[in-house]
């Protein structure tokens, strides 16, 4: 059923891995120390720096993680990290000099050496930050790839459901039956017309793009194909009024958003009325949202107050697909009046497709 992409942990890399990222540098420090072993106190000196380094990477990795979490941009985080790594290096140097003075290894404090001569620790800490950032980046990449794959799988599932819906055998066989009735009735012209319309609908269905979203124009076109057949079947009992606001034909909507709703409105509303009825579709933009309102005449519900089953199946199908595509970012309301008239209101985030170089470009 419905799957929501698993959210990665906000920091991505586990803390343990962050700390382990410090080990390669520590090993490098060991290797660099090798030629100096045997010199007076060089070993101790290097060991001290290594210990300091290992001590500082803990708060440093926490700081880095905190910055990723808050999404601090690189132009701020990089200078900040350079500064933050400089401070421990100075502290190390100060401690090392204090120790050296304490044990009488050097005659006195040399302040310039406290603020310079930082190769021991500063570079190592910067290298740690770089490795840590690399790990984080790699992890983020993996996560986004995984999420993308999940979204694709989800879209394919929706596509499949949509396909099953649109090639609903019930609709197909009913249409074939209508055609057969026309032939039996000697209405050859009406029959060939209905066949042509069914051909158009199938063609439009097969030519649909594989995209998880289509433009409103595409969706309206498919809905019109479907309406052609219902018009042929219901004649003047079906009155359709559709109005679309300016600038929304390129809005992206999930494929087969409208057609099942329109089919519901006709099958379970207008077609049940002896006198026929009207269906009004209004699509417009409301600031950053696309609003869709579908209203249709119906018949008062006899047995209970619940909407009819197949209506709810159609609605659930649409609702599920909307949840998969726009989690928490859409609304869908369905109301039935006492006289059976139904109204569906949907709002979606408004996003426009990039302008396509279609037949418009060909005329040049």
């Amino acid at each position, binding site marked *: 059923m419905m799957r929501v992409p698993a959210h990665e942990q906000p920091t991505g890399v586990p803390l343990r891995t962050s700390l382990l990222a410090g080990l390669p540098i520590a090993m490098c420090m060991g290797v660099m120390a090798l030629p100096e072993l045997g010199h007076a106190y060089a070993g101790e000196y290097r060991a001290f720096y290594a210990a300091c380094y290992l001590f500082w990477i803990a708060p440093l990795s926490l700081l880095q993680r905190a910055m990723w979490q808050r999404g601090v941009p690189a132009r701020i985080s990089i200078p900040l990290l350079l500064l933050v790594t400089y401070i421990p290096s100075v502290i190390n140097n100060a401690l090392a000099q204090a120790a050296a003075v304490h044990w009488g290894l050097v005659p006195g404090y040399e302040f310039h050496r406290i603020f310079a001569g930082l190769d021991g620790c500063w570079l190592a800490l910067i290298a740690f930050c770089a490795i840590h950032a690399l790990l984080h980046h790699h992890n983020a990449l993996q996560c986004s790839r995984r999420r993308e794959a999940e979204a694709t799988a989800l879209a394919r599932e929706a596509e499949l459901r949509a396909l099953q819906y649109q090639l609903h055998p019930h609709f197909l066989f009913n249409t074939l039956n209508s055609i057969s009735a026309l032939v039996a009735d000697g209405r050859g012209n009406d029959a060939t017309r209905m066949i042509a319309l069914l*051909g158009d609908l199938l063609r439009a269905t097969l030519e649909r793009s594989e995209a998880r979203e289509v433009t409103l124009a595409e969706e309206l076109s498919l809905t019109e194909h479907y309406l052609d057949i219902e018009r042929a079947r219901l004649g003047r009992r079906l009155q359709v009024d559709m109005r679309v606001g300016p600038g929304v034909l390129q809005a992206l909507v999930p494929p087969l958003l409208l057609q099942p709703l329109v089919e519901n409105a006709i099958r379970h509303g207008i077609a049940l009325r002896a006198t026929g009825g009207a269906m009004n579709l209004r699509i417009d933009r409301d600031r950053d949202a696309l609003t869709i309102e579908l209203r249709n005449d119906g018949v008062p519900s006899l047995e209970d107050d619940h909407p009819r089953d197949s209506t709810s199946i159609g609605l659930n199908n649409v609702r599920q697909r909307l949840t998969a595509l726009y989690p928490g970012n859409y609304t869908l309301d369905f109301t039935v009046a006492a006289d059976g008239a139904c109204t569906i209101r949907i709002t979606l985030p408004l996003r426009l497709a990039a302008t396509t170089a279609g037949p418009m470009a060909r005329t040049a």
Partner: protein
Amino acid sequence: MMRVMVVDDEPLARDGVRARLASHADMRWVGEAGDGESAIQAIESLQPDLVFMDVQMPGMSGIDALRRVASQTRPLSILLTAYDNFAVAAFEIHALDYLLKPIDDQRFRESLDRARAAFRQRTHDGHVEPPKAWAERFTVRVGQRIAVIEATQVDWIEANDDYAGLHVGSRAYLLREPLHQLAKRLDPNRFLRIHRSTIVRIDRIAELEALSNRDCLLRLHDGTPLRASRTYVDQLHAALAAR
């Protein structure tokens, strides 16, 4: 009188075209062919004025067959296709029109009208018919009374069985005249066929959005969305570019 030939690899499909031609007294069926090679031979020996040519046939395609006929002897052609993309090639061989299978009778009649016009032009060598008087107003029955609708008020027209639905603002009036007949009385500078069941007033078009299958979706100034089928899209662009 036009001499017509039908090429399709399926006998039933040929019969379908032939049966539809039978109701047009000015169309005379002169022969048929079931593949590209024999179509070329038949065209050269029979010299038809018009050929209905199926595009997808085993072996040589209908388009290739037409290409192989010298352009001086090449007849007017209407392509038949079930499902493919070949608009560019159709343009290249100067096909008059293309019909999608299953064939719609109304659309078929329209293709023949195009063929007649092209044929007249060919035989009379550019002789132009005197301009017709275009319909200025329509009378429709609204309940018990008769209303007069000016052609300039009409936004778009929709086929409704043997009636034409004239859309004026938010109202629709039924005119007792089939769309394909009404189409001939409308000023082509103002009204344009965009679908077998739709005619639109050109200056009411507000937006046009191309679809992936080469159809178009129009939006009128009053918000009505209308579909323009691919077979009319070129004329639509030409009409819009002319303003």
